[in-house]
């Protein structure tokens, strides 16, 4: 279909040249400038705050780093990061379409309850036990997000509003169902514990009894699938086009309503996985002490990682490091809330830095185009003058 001439010119270019052409050094450096700059700025800002409070910033940071090196807290950090990552991926699927799924919180807690309940009822089933739990979690998450998607598509209800409300409903619904279907253990109510076939074994890490959740592989797989679907498939292209310019997407044949619904369902499906690493790897039962707030952390991490599969992984690790290593600060008399301040400052400065870099990059690119084209009109103009 394409012209024969074009094929010839492209083939002469080696793979390395092509890489260099597609990812010029300047654009790589620009890409790194925002996150690195933001983290440095956050370090600076927290140093100022610490100094004002009469603490030594270097002592605080070295304490945090040392804490991270301890095997037990390292494992803890990895586990937390993988949960954050799943949550961030769920949020970013919506972000790609300009959908703000604030409801990951409610979606994952209901999904975790559903998986715990169904998993607890099942006995045996071999490897399918875990598969069924995962499917239940994804379906429940997708269904809960789908409510918001349907409302948006049919009634034009903003998904921001509906998912916030659905979060509140999920809390109530979750504890109602827990009371109805759970069993009491001590003064806590929980679902029937999942038997061994429905558990996911952890990975050992030398120097500690704590295990890295086996769900690590699922989190990685989700990341790869996310990268592949959004970056390589026709479906992903339609999502991207809709996010960048909805009107143009409509004109080019994208059924935006259907895409909205599908994106919400996918986002909810991934959100359903958020509670599973802990449930299947450690607690084996759902109770009201299950970790909360993961959905909101996911929003921050998706923003920090700019919806990029790798970026969000790094952001999740950073977030988890800050959160976990701060535990140690109490022991040296520094309020651990400094970590939350750092998280906030990093997020805010990343968002600002990215916007600055984005604008700077556009200006540079326009300059490039202008410079490249200036050569052509200049000669043409000269000809016109002499003619």
């Amino acid at each position, binding site marked *: *279909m*394409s*012209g024969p*001439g*074009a*094929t010839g*010119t*492209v083939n002469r270019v080696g793979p390395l040249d092509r890489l260099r*052409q*597609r990812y010029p050094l300047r654009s790589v450096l620009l890409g790194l400038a925002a996150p690195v700059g933001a983290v440095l700025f956050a370090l600076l800002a927290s140093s100022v705050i610490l100094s004002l409070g009469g603490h030594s910033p270097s002592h605080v940071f070295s304490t945090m780093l040392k804490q991270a090196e301890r095997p037990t807290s390292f494992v803890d950090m990895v586990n937390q990061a993988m949960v954050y990552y799943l949550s961030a991926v769920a949020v970013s699927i919506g972000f790609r379409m300009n959908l703000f799924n604030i409801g990951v919180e409610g979606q994952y807690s209901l999904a975790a309850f559903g998986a715990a309940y169904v998993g607890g009822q099942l006995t045996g089933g071999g490897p399918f036990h875990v598969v069924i739990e995962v499917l239940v979690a994804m379906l429940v998450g997708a269904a809960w997000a789908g409510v918001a998607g349907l409302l948006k598509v049919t009634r034009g209800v903003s998904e921001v509003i509906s998912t916030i409300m659905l979060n509140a409903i999920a809390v109530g619904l979750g504890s109602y169902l827990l009371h109805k279907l759970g069993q009491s253990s001590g003064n806590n109510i929980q679902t029937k514990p999942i038997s061994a076939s429905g558990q996911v074994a952890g990975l050992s890490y030398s120097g500690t009894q704590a295990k890295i959740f086996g769900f690590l592989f699922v989190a990685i797989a989700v990341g790869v699938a996310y990268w592949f679907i959004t970056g*390589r*498939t*026709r*479906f*992903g*292209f*339609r999502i*991207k*086009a809709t996010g*960048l*310019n909805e*009107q*143009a*997407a*409509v*004109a*080019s*044949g*994208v*059924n935006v309503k259907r895409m909205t619904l599908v994106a919400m369902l996918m986002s909810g499906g991934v959100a359903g996985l958020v509670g599973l690493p802990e449930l299947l790897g450690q607690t084996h039962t759902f109770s009201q002490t299950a970790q909360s707030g993961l959905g909101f952390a996911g929003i921050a991490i998706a923003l920090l990682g700019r919806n990029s599969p790798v970026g969000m992984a790094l952001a999740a690790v950073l977030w988890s490091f800050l959160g976990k290593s701060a535990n140690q600060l109490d022991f040296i008399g520094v309020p651990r809330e400094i970590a939350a301040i750092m998280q906030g400052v990093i997020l805010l400065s990343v968002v600002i830095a990215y916007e600055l870099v984005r604008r700077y990059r*556009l*200006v*540079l*690119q*326009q*300059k*490039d*185009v*202008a410079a*490249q*084209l200036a050569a*052509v*009109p200049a000669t*043409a*103009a000269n000809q*016109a003058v002499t*003619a």
Partner: protein
Amino acid sequence: MPQPVQPVTAGTPATSELAIEVLGITKRFPGVVANADVNIAVRRGTVHAIVGENGAGKSTLMKMLYGMQRPDEGEIRIDGKPVSFSSPSDAIAAGVGMVHQHFMLADNFTVLENIVLGSEPTARGALDFGAARRRITELSRTYGLGLNPDVLVEHLGVGDRQRVEIAKVLYRGARLLILDEPTAVLVPHEVEELFQNLRELKNEGLTILFISHKLDEVISVADDITVIRRGRTVGTANPHSTTPRQLAELMVGSELPSPETRSDTVSDRTVLSVRGLTVTAEGGRTVLDDLSFDIHAGEIFGIAGVEGNGQSELVEALMGIRPIAAGTVTLNARDITATSTRNRRLAGIGYIPEDRQRQGLLLEAPLWENRVLGHSDSAPNIKGPLIDRAGARRDTERIVAEFDVRTPGIDVPALALSGGNQQKLIVGRELSGEPVLLIASQPTRGVDVGAQAAIWDHVRRARASGLAVLLISADLEELIGMSDSIRVILRGAFVAEADPATITAEDLGAAMTGAGTVSGAA
């Protein structure tokens, strides 16, 4: 005959006569065109036209005169005194007013409210509409604007809206009016009314800077003409001794293209057949009323009409973007009335939307991804369920080469390109994959003469190989030159049929307003 076109040199009229003077303005700008050493002298009480192709740097110049941008070098003098504007309010304070091409009016406000918006008169802290009304009535009478202060703007036509914009500027005390492409949205008789208004403003001692690329209009209204090409002032011209053609050649710097497509390629094979197409807007108003027409292979079917008479709705209905109330659409004998936009595209409809940036491009995505936009279901962009990146990139290279898209590469974002090059990319994309029908809505709006000629060429070539084209354009010369047959649309219905071989732009313009009959009617 004296030389009609002079280069810009010293020896311009005495400074005291000049309302505004631009001396050696240079603006380096991260866009495609910068201003370099621009010199303009505008005599007080005249209409001074600034002509140039799109992208020649007219807008940048105007933005500097209106304080929206600052020049890097050079000087602007108003009434002989150097000025430096850092915002439009500085410009307004110095008596410079701008009438934008796109009206900035609130529909649900009255004329009065729109005019005072932003500089509301107050008396002891309360709004004082009485004083404003007196002032507007007086302005309207002095300058013959014929405005009724208490009418809602939504009830006004385009010409009246423009007069409201002018009144808005006058109300703020402007003595120098900048009009940016004021005739782009007007039909011929409205243009004449506007020019009458401009003459009255001039007679009252106001100075008008008139930006346009419609040369016959410029010649009829202007007292002086300055030509800008590639960011530089290349000459001044006396409208009484210059022909549009001479002006155009000065503007372009070379021989002019023309939109003629006289060789007949119309076959008798019907590609698109529309029967009884009716579209209603929300609220039940009929925006397309029982339209029926056929377009044959090799035929360019032109639709003339004042904007807002159903053209956009027709295009969107044909693309399956807008639901229809009644009627059928048949493409190559296949009923596509209920087919989705995606499947219509797959069936071979190419679509050049009227607003390329809003409907035709992903501005922040690279060119090759823009190649895939709207074609993410067909070769060479796909490999099963995946995007064939290599194939799409290769084909983008082809479009860039064949359609002369001026760009350093296919990885730059679409917004880095100038409008004409963006449009060439879209045209190249929509003519790819051998479409059977091309729906082209304002295909050359806002592109420079060179790109316009290239786009015409490509459409013509595709027509010769059997493409059916629905052409909607506000450029009547383009419409007459390109089309094999023309229909005039008015309030959602075809009101006349014109033969492009015999009709003139004036007659067509009259028919568009429902005023005249079409003399060249077939």
